[in-house]
């Protein structure tokens, strides 16, 4: 490997590196502002001045910007040269001329790059006595606070926001010493990744507005490596807590996953753990009680209904909690599933099985390198950081194709985006599969409108096929996998799963258990139902059945950290620790197990779900009571990875999926006259995050979205009202016409689906309201 010398130290560099990148990778500090590994060099701040030793001794040394100078073999660089130091001193002095010097009241204080650089390189005193330039700040919404006077014009914010995350509502306005970073007008930033401005801005221009409400200095925060619980990507986070409350969440670098960033759901969804209706005391029959009494009550009821017990774990419950519940049920003669929706159970198990029986899911950095992708569904809402990874692929020229039923932000970056009604997704994918086979067999398919897509996927060096499982059936997931197989060994397959531990939970119980439990509760065969971190009552398609069925139960035992509809109905309720208050392990969409530590503890005793079940096992005198040994028994070759490491694959394999469609049979095209539903999601749409008021205040309005042509044909106009009737209820909603929704489909939000008792793709009755 080639090397350069920095102040006498030998530093290796990779081809294409500049001096600054090489130095930072080797942990050698060269002062800088505008350079960022994700954004590369700009040369805007001039702080990274270094001196280069001339080749010939009769030439003078040369000052240059380390971020703009390519590293070359044998180059001798000095950061400490007097001339370089002088440049840095002047740069800092210049930047500080207009700076408000408000460090004592600045939220960035203590973790401010400008503060550090000023102390390291700047002059100790101020010479300028004139007036400072001042700006008016903007209201950028509930999540980000704006303080423009602190800006040092490094352009990191707009380079991140526009160039990297492809947003277009934050920009650099005006010129000269009046450059202003903001929006056209006041209003919330629209990008699902806007929160990263808080970390990418080296000063206090953009700060976390929620943290600001309950602020603590960075050095006073308790932190520990954690994993984001809001989707299946498993981004690494560093939450900060103080005085027994959670204050903020920041990103923590994982070199293969989220690297420097997280999405706004991950950053601001944490408010669920500070929600005013947070469960803090165990309850038996609606009365607060002690943990011990609640355990006793649960034990009595479980003993009384031996062999008539069911348990529902969750895709948002960790590996420990799910495994403990499964083990407990094994001992007391019960059935376990991690899903309350049999279709989702089937789809998730199918997805995980296909992943295990293929090359496995690519990491986020691998996804940035693909050159073509077929995306099924709304990735931004189901796995925001996968969306960001694909935006990077798009920037490098990847051709993205999208099949979607409802609007999704990624559509604007695709080569072709096709709206497909949920019930026709299977046919569409099968057709594409046929086309690809035909093309590969040398047949001419050019008169087919999807030929371009087939060709783009075939000619790609590395095509990616990715589906969002929550809006797909098991058979849809399987056709996607078959597409990948057809495309050959270079094709990559992956799925955005339904929760942070969906992969891990899918390994624990066979498909069919969810339906078996539901039916057994309905027939009264199951008398006691234990639910850990799940909310069957709020399932869009099955919620109604669960509610009705649960009236037959003797006892509903719920373990959760949020007050869901199911938790409210519980006979025995165990409040458990939120994710930042406990340790555990999630298995992400790749099958990567990642562990996390508790960041802090609340004054109340809040065990994890796994702890509660372990205690129950003790009270019931079960033979297996210890979390670690249960994990060991269930996953014999698995070592829980240390928190803060890169994680490790979970070595379990599911049997391959057979070809015959089983429980998750495809949603078949209904006759054309009926409407079907499509889930309309947004990036804050997730169970835990729905308890985070800051984030949910940005939720889109409750409307029904219909495609223009279908609407015209049925005489529905934009802004008019329609009545939607489902199996549970009917609602009247204003209509919005939109091109990005499939024909014959009504796009509605999750809350409305739950109210109507309908799932994604279910038939729905629609009538005009006059």
């Amino acid at each position, binding site marked *: 490997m080639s090397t350069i010398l920095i102040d006498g130290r030998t530093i290796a560099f990779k081809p294409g590196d500049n001096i600054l990148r090489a130095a930072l990778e080797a942990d050698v500090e060269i002062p800088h502002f505008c350079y960022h590994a994700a954004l590369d060099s700009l040369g805007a701040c001039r702080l990274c001045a270094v001196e280069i030793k001339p080749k010939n001794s009769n030439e003078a040394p040369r000052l240059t910007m380390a971020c703009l100078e390519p590293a070359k073999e044998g180059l001798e660089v000095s950061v400490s040269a007097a001339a370089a130091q002088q440049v840095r001193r002047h740069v800092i002095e210049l930047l500080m001329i207009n700076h408000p010097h408000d460090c004592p009241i600045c939220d960035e204080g203590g973790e401010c790059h400008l503060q550090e650089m000023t102390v390291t390189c700047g002059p100790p005193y101020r010479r300028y006595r004139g007036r400072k330039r001042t700006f008016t700040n903007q209201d950028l919404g509930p999540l980000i606070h704006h303080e423009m006077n602190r800006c040092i014009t490094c352009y990191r914010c707009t380079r991140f926001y526009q160039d990297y995350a492809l947003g277009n509502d934050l920009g650099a*306005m005006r010129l000269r010493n009046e450059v202003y970073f903001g929006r056209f*007008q006041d209003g919330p930033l629209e990008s699902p990744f806007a929160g990263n401005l808080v970390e990418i801005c080296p000063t206090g221009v953009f700060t976390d507005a929620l943290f600001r409400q309950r602020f603590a200095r960075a050095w006073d925060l308790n932190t520990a490596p954690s994993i984001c619980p809001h989707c299946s990507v498993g981004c690494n986070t560093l939450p900060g807590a103080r005085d027994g409350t959670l204050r903020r969440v920041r990103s923590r670098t994982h070199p293969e996953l989220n690297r420097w960033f997280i999405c706004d759901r991950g950053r601001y969804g944490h408010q669920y753990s500070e929600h005013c209706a947070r469960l803090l005391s165990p309850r038996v029959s609606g009365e607060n009680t002690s943990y011990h009494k609640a355990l006793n009550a649960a034990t009595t009821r479980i003993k009384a209904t031996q062999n008539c017990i069911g348990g529902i774990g969750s895709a948002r419950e960790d590996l420990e909690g799910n495994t403990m519940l499964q083990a407990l049920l094994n001992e007391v003669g019960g059935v376990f599933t991690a899903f309350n929706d049999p279709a989702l159970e089937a789809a998730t198990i199918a997805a995980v099985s296909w992943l295990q029986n293929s090359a496995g899911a690519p990491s986020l950095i691998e996804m940035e390198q693909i050159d073509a992708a077929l995306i099924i569904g709304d990735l931004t809402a189901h796995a925001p950081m996968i969306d960001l990874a694909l935006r990077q692929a798009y920037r490098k020229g990847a051709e993205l194709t999208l099949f979607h039923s409802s609007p999704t932000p990624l559509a604007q970056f695709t080569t072709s985006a096709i709206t497909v009604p949920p019930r026709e997704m299977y046919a569409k994918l099968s057709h594409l599969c046929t086309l690809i086979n035909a093309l590969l067999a040398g047949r001419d398919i050019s008169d087919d409108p999807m030929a371009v897509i087939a060709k783009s996927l075939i000619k790609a060096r590395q095509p990616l096929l990715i589906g969002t499982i929550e809006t797909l059936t098991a058979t849809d997931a399987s056709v996607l996998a078959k597409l990948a197989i057809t495309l050959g060994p270079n094709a990559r397959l992956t799925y955005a799963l339904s929760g942070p531990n969906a992969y891990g939970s899918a390994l624990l119980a066979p498909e069919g258990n969810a339906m078996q439990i539901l039916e057994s509760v309905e027939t009264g065969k199951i008398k006691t139902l234990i639910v850990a971190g799940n909310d069957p009552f709020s399932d869009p398609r099955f919620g109604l059945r669960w509610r009705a069925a649960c009236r037959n139960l003797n006892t509903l035992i719920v373990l959760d950290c949020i007050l869901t509809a199911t938790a409210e109905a519980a006979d025995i309720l165990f409040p458990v620790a939120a994710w930042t208050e406990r340790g555990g392990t999630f298995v992400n969409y790749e099958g990567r197990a990642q562990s996390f530590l508790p960041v802090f503890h609340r004054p109340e005793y809040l065990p994890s779900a796994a702890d509660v079940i372990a205690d129950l096992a003790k009270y019931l005198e079960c033979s297996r009571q210890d979390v670690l040994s249960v994990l060991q028994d269930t996953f014999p070759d698995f070592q829980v990875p240390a928190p803060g490491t890169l994680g490790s694959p979970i070595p379990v394999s599911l049997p391959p999926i057979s070809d015959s469609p089983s429980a998750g049979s495809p949603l078949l095209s209904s006759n054309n006259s009926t409407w079907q539903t499509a889930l309309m999601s947004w990036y804050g749409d997730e169970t835990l995050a729905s308890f985070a008021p800051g984030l949910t205040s940005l939720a889109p309005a409750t409307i029904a979205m219909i495609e223009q042509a279908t609407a015209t044909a049925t005489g529905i106009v934009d802004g008019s009202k329609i009545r939607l009737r489902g199996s549970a209820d009917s609602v009247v909603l204003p209509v919005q016409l939109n091109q990005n929704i499939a024909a014959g489909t009504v796009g509605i939000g999750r809350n409305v689906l739950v109210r109507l008792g309908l799932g994604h793709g279910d038939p729905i009755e629609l009538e005009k309201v006059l």
Partner: protein
Amino acid sequence: MNTFEVLQKNLAHLSRTHPRRRAAAVPAMQNLQAELGYLDDMAITKLAQITGLSTTELEELATFYSLIYRRPPGRHVVQICDSVCCNMRGADQLLESAEKYLHRPLGAITPNGALSVLPSICLGLCDKAPAALVDGEALGPLNNASLEALLQRLQKGD
């Protein structure tokens, strides 16, 4: 047809030869400004619909170029260069004396709406430093006396 519609139509023609509508943003702004005198928020919003750029992206362009006005200027506009060459030849004094002479800060319009004086980035008239652009006409080198005479004439003018 109003100005917006004309623009929209022109841009529709353009797209065959110039598939990137974004490239038309600045000419479109100039067109609209020639018609309206300046671009208000409403104009920016309309331009966003026509060009496919976001309002923020248009605002970036509009506020970067000194010849695009986001506020109404006077009937006559004097833009005095304050970049390096002109500054070295006394542009700062010219700007100061314009403020004094008109009794108002740069950018403000004189009471009868006749005149506004604005600073400008280099006009490419460095050989005539200190230079100014007067209603689109190059002028320079200026001194205090010639500037005052000019301002007086423009104020009295129409």
